């Protein structure tokens, strides 16, 4: 059975503050060389999905630049491949508010696609999953919609409990709460923003939502229809990293310093594909002291780096000290500068001797391109 993929690139944009000021959630940098969308795209491609639509709304220039023609994911194809679906705003509709409305822009893409099943996914959860297993369960159970879930008891305390569901004995979802305050009761599961649904039913849902003016997939479709259609949960067993606010973004990056999670995400389930930059291997100079850190290609390190993540092309001059920080692409840290508990966006320049020190609970964020 063939599937096609639809990725919502802008959902949760407002939760990452400065990091999403000029970029979509999907193109938020992660883990030293990736963008969040890389994980969803790689999972889809590794699950033999060859047709992927990316629904965009705003700030999608960096995303388009990242995706190119899809060749890094082998999605540059004659039949199928990668489709960017910008807002469908002709006629009376405007830029969409929720996923249901967003899907109206994908109607043409869906109509012309061959596969019978659709995987819908957000980009804010980093994980490795084979959607083929989920589809098998979907077909076997006779569900109308299958929702990927994780037991609340397995989630980090800080993760925002967004869509919380409970199932009956057969696994059918019989209770859906959005942002409840008492989430972690026994049997509570959180939805991970991934759904499998037949193309036929999805088209009907999109059509109904248009005529009834519904916008929110979780509230207007899942919550309202749970008694009418058979919505079931499928539990994800592997590790997940939820990027739902800035603190969790910070923690979610630091999680990659744990060898087990790192290998589970990047090696055990095959490589994660991303745009290549043809950088030189990282150079460690005479005064380099690196501990418990992730270092990308193109970095030149001549200072101290501890418990930190350096993206591609970061330069750390002699005597500089970086601790507990995330430093993005092409940022330069001057001599004897001190960076602690901070997130430095791309192309930031820190002059010699400067100090940027944040709090571990609330890391300081420097926006793209600033010079200190």
């Amino acid at each position: 059975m063939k599937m096609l993929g639809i990725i919502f690139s802008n959902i949760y944009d407002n939760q990452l503050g400065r990091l999403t000021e000029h970029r979509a959630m999907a193109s938020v940098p992660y883990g030293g060389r990736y963008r969040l969308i890389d994980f969803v795209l790689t999972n889809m491609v590794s699950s033999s999905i060859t047709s992927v639509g990316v629904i965009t709304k705003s700030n999608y220039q960096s995303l388009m630049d990242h995706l190119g023609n899809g060749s890094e994911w082998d999605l540059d194809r004659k039949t199928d491949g990668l489709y960017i679906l910008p807002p469908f705003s002709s006629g009376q509709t405007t830029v969409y508010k929720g996923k249901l409305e967003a899907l109206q822009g994908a109607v043409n893409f869906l109509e012309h696609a061959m596969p019978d099943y659709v995987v819908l996914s957000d980009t804010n959860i980093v994980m490795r999953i084979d959607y083929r297993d989920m589809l098998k369960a979907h077909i076997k159970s006779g569900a109308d919609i299958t929702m990927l879930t994780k037991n609340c008891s397995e989630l980090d305390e800080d993760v925002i409990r967004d869509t919380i569901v409970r199932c009956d004995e057969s696994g059918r979802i019989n209770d859906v709460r959005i942002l409840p305050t008492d989430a972690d009761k026994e049997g509570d599961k959180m939805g991970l923003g991934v759904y499998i649904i037949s193309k036929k039913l999805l088209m009907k849902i999109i059509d109904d939502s248009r005529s009834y003016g519904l916008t929110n997939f979780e509230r207007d479709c899942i919550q309202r229809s749970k008694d009418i259609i058979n919505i079931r949960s499928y539990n994800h067993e592997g590790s997940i990293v939820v990027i739902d606010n800035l603190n969790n973004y910070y923690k979610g990056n630091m999680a990659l310093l744990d060898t087990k999670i790192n290998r589970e995400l990047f090696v055990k389930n095959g490589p994660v594909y991303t745009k290549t930059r043809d950088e030189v291997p990282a150079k460690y100079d005479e005064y380099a002291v690196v501990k418990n850190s992730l270092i990308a290609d193109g970095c030149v390190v001549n200072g101290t780096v501890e418990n930190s993540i350096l993206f591609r092309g970061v330069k750390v001059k002699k005597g500089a000290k970086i601790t507990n920080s995330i430093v993005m692409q092409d940022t330069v840290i001057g001599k004897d500068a001190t960076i602690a508990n901070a997130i430095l966006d791309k192309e930031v320049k820190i002059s010699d001797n400067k100090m940027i020190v944040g709090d571990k609970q609330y890391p300081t964020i420097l926006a793209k391109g600033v010079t200190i």
Partner: protein
Amino acid sequence: MLKTKECIAMLLAGGQGSRLGVLTKHLAKPAVPFGGKYRIIDFTLSNCINSGIDTVGVLTQYQPLLLNDYIGNGHPWGLNRNYGGVHILSPYTKSKTAEWYKGTANAIYQNIKFIDNYNPEYVVILSGDHIYKMDYSKMLAFHKEKQADCTIAVLDVPKEEASRFGIMNITDDNKIYEFEEKPPQPKSTKASMGVYIFTWDKLRKYLIEDEENAESSNDFGKNIIPAMLDAGENLYAYLFEGYWKDVGTIDSLWEANMDLLNDDLPMDLSDKKFKIFARNNSNPCTLIKDGAVVKNSLMSEGCIVEGNVNCSIISTNCEIQKGANILYSVIMSGGVVEEGATVQYAIVGENVVIKKGAVVGQLPGEYENADDWGVCVVGNNRVIEENQKVKSKEMV
């Protein structure tokens, strides 16, 4: 408009590279890994595209499978063109004959039809076993300015080393009047880099004549260049200034790798306007754990390091375990160096496992006579057993 290419490149990549021993047992020399994430051929291929040459014929013969696979459709180098691009040219059978490439000139001769398809004015002949960054378009401008029939790139080498190279004796105007292959008493220090630009009409004629001569060994240096000089054609030397290294031997391959650690090297790999491209295998960032000490080294992505690395080149996906020591060595991709193992002055091939307590290579100080000491080599996919010792100069 009739489609033509002004200049195309032919890259000789068929050499066995027997002096690299175990490293080239199952792959051609141009495919040997270099500098942590590259293969030797990346330098010439990248030079081509960075010089505006988007049509490259790669002549392969010895163990071509990995090389063919690596080059693929040329996408990593931007050499995937509808018209032009990179082409693998292996020897093939013709209606009357079927032969291997007999020599460098014969290899080009057998592909005259390929070149004619593009109807170029100029052809650059390159070899796939040198490490250097060079803008061939500057050399082509020189070739045109001199209205030369052939231009040979030369490098000023130290006088005492000149007898190891093909030496060009030139006039003040850079015109070549004599070529000597490895002369015992060199008259000049201008050594050929194995980079030639020919005006195609001329080269075509000399290739056909050379083929008719049964005595000829069908080699550019031995036959084509001398024949053109004898006939009084215009041959010029183009002086290249910069880093260039032949990596045909274990020692020179090791040295060239170590050269990358020198900040003053006159070859900047990180120049964004002249990148060296390579096929990329999507590896995560390197994870440096507590207790690791990494200094004066180049390290590619996908590694996990808990041990000590000094003055070394570590390629993609290596694992350096606790207490392991790497010194002045090259570890190719997928290598595992287990706890307490030592690797010093060594080239370690791809996917090698060095077990606990093993010692690979020896320090120069362990030998009284410096000539007895040398770099050791571990071939691809080998396992060095616990506490095993690999001596200096040894190849396993």
